[in-house]
């Protein structure tokens, strides 16, 4: 019996509600709002209460996919990463870093957003980085 709770922050809207994800034997079984959160004070909306459902959806992407002859095939991480990097490098070498665009994510963490813009700016040498702030 391995029951534990993880205190975290909601991934839906900009309110930033805090809740505990209740985990039993490696599966999230429920979400419970954090009573002492300065934002939500023990309350949640319907999306928050059910936030654990999509996490463990059978529809989650679980393997890298590569398009081969027009159709997607499962690939290993090495294969997918090598393909991505080599194509990016080829395009950068042939047409310059400014011919690559990066769409970052308002769903990803600060740390990930930071790395992504650093990838665009430092590794590709372009400021073509944006996200859906306007959408």
């Amino acid at each position, binding site marked *: 019996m391995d029951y534990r709770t993880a205190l975290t922050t909601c991934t839906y809207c900009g*309110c930033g509600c805090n809740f505990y994800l209740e985990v039993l034997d490696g599966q999230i079984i429920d979400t419970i709002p954090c009573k002492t959160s300065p934002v939500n004070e023990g309350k949640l909306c319907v*999306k928050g209460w059910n936030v654990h459902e999509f*996490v463990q959806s059978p529809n989650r992407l679980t393997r890298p996919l590569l398009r081969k002859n027009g159709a997607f095939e499962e690939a290993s991480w090495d294969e997918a990463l090598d393909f*991505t990097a080599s194509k990016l490098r080829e395009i950068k070498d042939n047409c310059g870093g400014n011919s690559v665009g990066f769409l970052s994510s308002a769903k990803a*963490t600060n*740390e990930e*957003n930071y790395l992504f813009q650093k990838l665009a700016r*430092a590794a590709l040498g372009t400021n073509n980085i944006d996200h859906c702030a306007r959408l």
Partner: protein
Amino acid sequence: MTNSVAELENSACIFVIGSNTTSSHPLVATRIFRAKQKGAKLIVADPRKIQLALMADTYVRQNLGTDVALINGIMHVILDRGWQDQGFIEERTEGFETVKEKVRSYTPEKVSGITGIPEEDIVKIAEDFGTAQTASIVYCMGITQHVTGVDNVKSLANLAMLTGNVGKESTGVNPLRGQNNVQGACDMGGLPNVYPGYQAVNMLDNQKKFESIWGTDLSDQVGRTVSDMLGGLSDGSLKALYVMGENPMLSDPDTAHVEKALKAAELLVVQDIFFTPTAELAHVVLPGSSFAEKDGTFTNTERRVMRVRKAIEPVGDSRPDWQIIQEISNRLGYSMDYDSPEAILKEIAEVTPSYSGITYERLEGEGLQWPCPDEGHPGTKFLHKDAFARGKGLFHAIDFKPPAESVDANYPFWLTTGRIHVHYHTGTMTRNSPTLHSEVPEGSLEINPGDAGQLGIREGDEVEVSSRRGKIRTKTVLTERVKEGLVFMPFHFVESNANALTNPALDPIAKIPELKVCAVRVEKAA
């Protein structure tokens, strides 16, 4: 937000405009309910009769895209009655005379003609807002997603400065950020013109600073926005697009144009947790891990940086985005070697002045609101306390401009779009949640019963909705929430994709598309 969410509940007057708060930011609505309970005046301006309208002291439904006229009208009345905060205007602002001159012609009579709002309601709003001890403005994409988005926001800033409602507790100009970490993505430099902490890329000092810390040459050229990237793919000037956790096939206006652009890419990389309509077009799809499977931080709408903690192992073979990015970067020959998100935050604090005092240790408890410039700093509850970033607050004299497109005989209905309470943005997550999906399994078109009667449409009927850009099918909901001549669609549903219809016309400065206004035709489906 200039102010904090909790401060709203002690505001004496709250003006909600272009925000369906109970649906899109429910836990902000909580504070509005409380303020109302404590006797605050609630003003709601929204083309749809949203839930908050039910309890508003004054509810007005402006014609789509007429916000500048409404706000100028409110300021006209405030100045006419002498309700402005002259002390604040003189000490803290400049440019007041130009606004005073500009709004002189925006009489209630004229404004009523443009907005469709009764004159007496404009006066009532001016009185409630102008005479309140503390007044807060709350807005969302209903204000910004217009070709006049910047004008709309500046007008609200004018109203706040005119009445001295900024730089003190329970006041302010408070945009509600739509995505959980849209604030953080902006703070982290996920924008084409700024490094982390809004440091301009085209200023040499900033460039030198980041070149020295990152150990490489950087570009001083402002990059492309989302819409420019799509344009670039279409005209061939952009060859590749790497999309992390976004779904432009549903979130961007004029889907047919988006699809054409994405298909033109030599390389489309999509990193996501689900197989989105955008992923369907990719050359390579990289499975990321969800927020429950990793550590990190999010920054909410009130600038509060809070911890994200790992609850379970990554699902399947998925990997946290920060690990994937490192792998790609290393393969490109630019070394990244962080052993944890915490190590990344340390670098963020080093390069981002407003995050300098933030550490994982200090985020225990209630988190920290930026600016937090050093490790002794308690964080900042509300902005602009003694001065604005530029010193004095600048008034902008702004004229009303109509939306980019208008109704005509072929497209006689105004369409506006938005969110509903159980779904979220492009539905990638919520439609994979059985509970949420069963509450609202499909999209719909809200139409006034009067209009529906004219078209011979009954509740639940299938209709075809077409605009100058596309056509979709959906079912109808007959409701007085929309007035005659106006229809509404949520944009969560790929089968009835509202953004196949919307107008990609952009605000010239912010480059935000006018998703909230377009002209459509509604016909009963054959």
